[in-house]
């Protein structure tokens, strides 16, 4: 069992758990993920590692309530434990000195971007961060990202905070500003990553995205997470999760994320019935 040492509700529907997992903490690197199973009847779900502390032996995960499993996870308190916490899985994010890197974070993806931006900063890059959410009440970790960014732009869809609009607008402006952009890291909802990749495509600036297809084992065994990149089938769990955004078949990814919509709804309804 893996104990929840700290719990923080970042914004409505997005929660942070600090988990006691010393072995995983020793090995975790930016961009990797864990597979979590709450209990005997739970499913295995991939969650990205948001932070870790080797000395403390802890790994921090941030997750959004999207269905029955994450809703069930969100009910757990400090001191509770989860049955399984497997990792660190996936290939770590490529970290090197590129020059100037634009990090684009959307929604819960903010927690994924944070350790990558930090590692890129430590590697000597200049970091421009664009952080986008639907509205002010869903914004989190502006301070964390500001701390590792040379420049910070916040957007909200409804204009309740920062700049009104979506992340691709400032991204486009940065690309056209005359400043040399060497790399873009875009992590968030599929549609956001898709449009960031489309935005950077004309300039040819390498754009790295982190894909989050449905997974089961997370170790290359089932092929559920297969994605098409540059016309080749890849397993996001072992070949990724990071890929070249210009080569990803976004429509296929979006379609494959909808495979279990009916079942997810059924499970969520059942769960709500039993908790109302």
């Amino acid at each position, binding site marked *: 069992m893996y104990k929840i040492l700290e719990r923080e509700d970042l914004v409505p529907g997005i929660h942070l758990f600090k988990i006691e997992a010393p072995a995983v903490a020793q090995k975790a690197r930016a961009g990797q993920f864990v597979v979590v199973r709450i209990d005997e009847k739970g499913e295995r779900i991939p969650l990205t590692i948001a932070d870790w502390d080797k000395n403390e032996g802890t790994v921090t995960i941030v997750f959004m309530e999207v269905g029955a499993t994450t809703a069930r996870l969100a009910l757990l308190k400090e001191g509770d434990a989860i049955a399984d916490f497997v990792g660190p899985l996936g290939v770590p994010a490529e970290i090197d000195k590129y020059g100037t890197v634009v990090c684009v974070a959307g929604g819960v993806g903010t927690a994924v971007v944070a350790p990558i931006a930090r590692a890129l900063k430590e590697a000597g890059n200049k970091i421009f961060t664009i952080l986008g959410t639907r509205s002010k009440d869903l914004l989190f970790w502006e301070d964390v990202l500001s701390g590792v960014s040379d420049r910070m732009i916040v957007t909200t869809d409804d204009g309740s905070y920062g700049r009104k609009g979506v992340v691709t607008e400032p991204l486009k402006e940065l690309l056209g500003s005359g400043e040399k952009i060497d790399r873009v890291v875009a992590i968030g909802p599929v549609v956001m990553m898709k449009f960031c990749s489309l935005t950077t495509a004309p300039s040819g600036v390498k754009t790295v995205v982190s894909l989050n297809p449905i997974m*089961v084992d997370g170790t*290359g*065994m089932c092929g559920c997470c297969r994605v*098409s990149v540059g016309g080749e*089938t890849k397993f996001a769990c072992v070949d990724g999760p990071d890929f070249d955004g210009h080569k990803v078949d976004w429509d296929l990814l979006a379609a494959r994320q909808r*495979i279990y919509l009916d*079942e*997810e709804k059924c499970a969520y309804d059942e769960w709500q019935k039993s908790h109302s």
Partner: protein
Amino acid sequence: MAELNLNRVEMPRQDPKKRGKNFNEVALGYSLEQAKEEASRCIQCKKRNCVAGCPVEVDIPDFIQAIREGNMPEAVRILKSKNALPGICGRVCPQETQCESTCTLAKKGAPIAIGRLERFVADWERGNMPAQSTPPRPKASGKPSGRKVAVVGSGPAGLTAAADLARLGHGVTIFEALHVAGGVLMYGIPEFRLPKEIVQAEVDFVASLGVKIELDSVVGKLATLDEILASGYDAVFLGTGAGLPMFLNIEGENLNGIYSANEFLTRVNLMKAYKFPEYDTPVKIGKRVGVIGGGNVAMDSARCALRLGADDVYIIYRRSEVELPARREEVENAREEGIQFKLLANPKRFLGNEQNWVTGAECYKMELGEPDDSGRRRPVVKKGSEFVIDLDEVIVALGTRPNPLISSTTVGLETTKYGTVVADGETGKTVKDKVWAGGDIVTGSATVISAMGAGKRAAKSIDEYLRG
């Protein structure tokens, strides 16, 4: 010589109509009377061909004699001294090509039903000898050696190697990537052929020998093989199997509703999707399901799909009936349950709708040409023979390859172009110091018992090395 009795005692099975709708075990096992009757047919040959036909060298005539005499604890002791997993082997070993094929009575067409007797003994033990009672251990050949061995993977090869090494006095830790031990026995083989309760009981038996089992431990990610060796292990046995699914690499294969057999079976068996939504993991239930391939995994997938409620389930296989690689018994079980066989057919591409869901498979008709490297006649495409099978779910069961997770993170391990690890055929020793390997990771996908045999031989070699 007494007159030979050539009437094999049949084992009762669930009615095909009923069993096609449940996940309960198909074969029901012998009663004590049936077991004794079958055991009494054994002529106790001087030359024990059956033992030679068993990869783990079970003293077959001896345990059969004990059954005949009604001395079940003795039968248990004899069987488990060589085989830590008899309940599993009695169910899934292809005895017809191993011990039973070398039985003297096989020449008369009625070999002793060794597999059914083995199963009976294992089941008798589970029902009659409480787990907390001392397990029937063989004479340990040595006192604690003070040496530590890491076993990577808890499938048939790893469990067997671990059990033998523990009995030989070594400290053994198994590292397992999944959340339960058993490997393919848990995630691959369905409940109706191998109940998970039986796998768990035999895993518990291995643990009772002093083997530590670390779950959720993905070697290569959590710790590399070299880090394990550096942390104080004197030897490592790699038994990680062949877990990477193969696809056809044809158009449409990423459509929704197309599963690898590994994914489909993992959802159903390991994650218990057949009990969704009581269990959280879902699986799609098609009306018309096509399973591509003709091996045991294909039969398992087809029969699971049927039990989940599919109307029509097709085995789509590119060769003919006689080349089906599955056990005959499983083909017959599948057919009895209503699985339909589309033989000499091979998918050219999968068809889908605008929502990216699979709607069918366009297949070629095939014919058999000259024998290929495998000795089987090569399937050849009949030009212009394309036809469409309407399907709303496809399960690709073409076989598996070893997962490169360990070989790619380990220095000095030799692999083949198929991704298998190179190891000595007899001892399982790899070219890397202190590292042995066995089972599907060396041979590519094969059988449970051949993996167990490899685990056993490697354990012997590791023991010699540690005591050398």
